[in-house]
């Protein structure tokens, strides 16, 4: 019980800082809009092309926006040695990880929901009939991405060029997520929807999530210790 209340405290702290500044959410959303804008001018896609490239483009936007946001989660703590304070406070270090991971997950999901709506609106991309499955796929994909990303954000915050180090480490490691989530999204929005394909890739995502939520919990102590 104590573990979960500590986790909840860290989560609330992170969300509260974000609520007061709105730095991360604002930058992720603006970045997402910029990618959509560039996509429009680079391809001038018609509706057939949107159907074909939409899932991949959406997830590239989510991944890059996520990289931007997650980099802040530990770099921000380095200012004024706030991370030292967290480490000295009487909490289990795993709950620091879990709290920050959940905060990143919620922020990413919020940003993704808004970007998805804007994408659908601007490109007349029909998402509403199958929005429930899209939500499930997005959750599974974002969970794996956020759990590995939060751990690697802690790793890269200790390097000299954290904003470069995070993508270099993270993108190869979440490649299975990118592959499965794009294929699942494409199957979901195909006409007609290819449910067996979608379920298969959702299972792959779930398996990845199980492995890569457990592994950071086991290794996070090694990243923090001084």
């Amino acid at each position, binding site marked *: 019980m104590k573990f979960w209340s500590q986790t909840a405290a860290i989560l609330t702290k992170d969300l509260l800082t974000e609520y007061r500044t709105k730095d991360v959410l604002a930058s992720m959303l603006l970045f997402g809009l910029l990618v959509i804008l560039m996509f429009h001018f680079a391809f001038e896609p018609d509706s057939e092309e949107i159907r074909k490239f939409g899932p991949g483009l959406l997830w590239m936007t989510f991944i890059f926006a996520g990289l931007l946001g997650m980099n802040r989660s530990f770099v921000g703590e380095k200012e004024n040695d706030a991370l030292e304070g967290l480490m000295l406070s009487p909490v289990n270090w795993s709950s620091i990880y879990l709290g920050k991971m959940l905060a990143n997950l919620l922020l990413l999901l919020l940003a993704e929901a808004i970007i998805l709506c804007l994408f659908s609106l601007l490109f007349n991309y029909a998402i509403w009939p199958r929005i429930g499955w899209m939500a499930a796929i997005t959750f599974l994909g974002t969970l794996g991405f956020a759990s590995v990303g939060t*751990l690697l954000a802690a790793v890269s915050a200790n390097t000299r060029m954290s904003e470069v*180090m995070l993508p270099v480490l993270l993108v*190869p490691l979440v490649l299975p997520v990118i592959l499965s989530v794009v294929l699942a999204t494409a199957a979901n929005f195909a006409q007609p929807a290819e449910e067996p394909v979608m379920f*298969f890739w959702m299972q792959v995502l779930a398996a990845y999530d199980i492995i890569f939520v457990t592994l950071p919990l086991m*290794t996070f102590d090694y*990243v923090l210790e001084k």
Partner: protein
Amino acid sequence: MEGLQKRLGLLALLAMVAALYAIFVLAPVELTMGVVQKIFYFHVAAAWVGFLAIYLVCFCSLRFLRKRDRQWDIRAASAAEVGAVFLTLNLVSGPIWAKPVWGIWWTWDARLTTTFVLWLIYMGYLMLRRLVDSPEQRARLSAVVSIFGAVNALIVYMANRWWRTQHPQPVIAGGEDSGLHPDMLLALLVTVLAFTLLFFCLWKMGCDLERSRESVESLRRTAQRHLREVR
């Protein structure tokens, strides 16, 4: 310790000569692909060493996290450096074979993609080591990353395999029609042995180099201290 390295080096040299003999004299020229198929032996052997190395890096990293002995960190780092070189050899030799046989340099097939991703993981690992200043922190952080890399290499392979594959099926224990001419199999096995010996020899040299670098550094610090005292 010097003796081990010399013996490994000598064994690697002998095995390499035997491998060259087996590849170019003993093994028959492949019927449809011709001479270019000879790349296969070095290509597969380099891939084997590249994949072996990431698991050795992971193993040494786990030992480091348990024992906190700097020697295990040095072993992990050196295995990663040598492994990355072999994987690069594999990635370069592949397209040279693929162009005449497939007609293209590269294709996004399961095994090619996996190798490419593993190579990127190696690069990330080596880059991380350069960008962390404190040796103790560098050892810890890179150890954690290598564990993720090793686990991920497996998942990338499976995910890609379910997706698509164009690479020739495994010729050993692949499918019903697969199989190698006995002399080709012999040549492959000798080459794999030679590359593995070469890897262990280079690995040993890399560890020694790192250790000498460290002792030079500590000697320099001692000398500077003495100089200051004399003044």
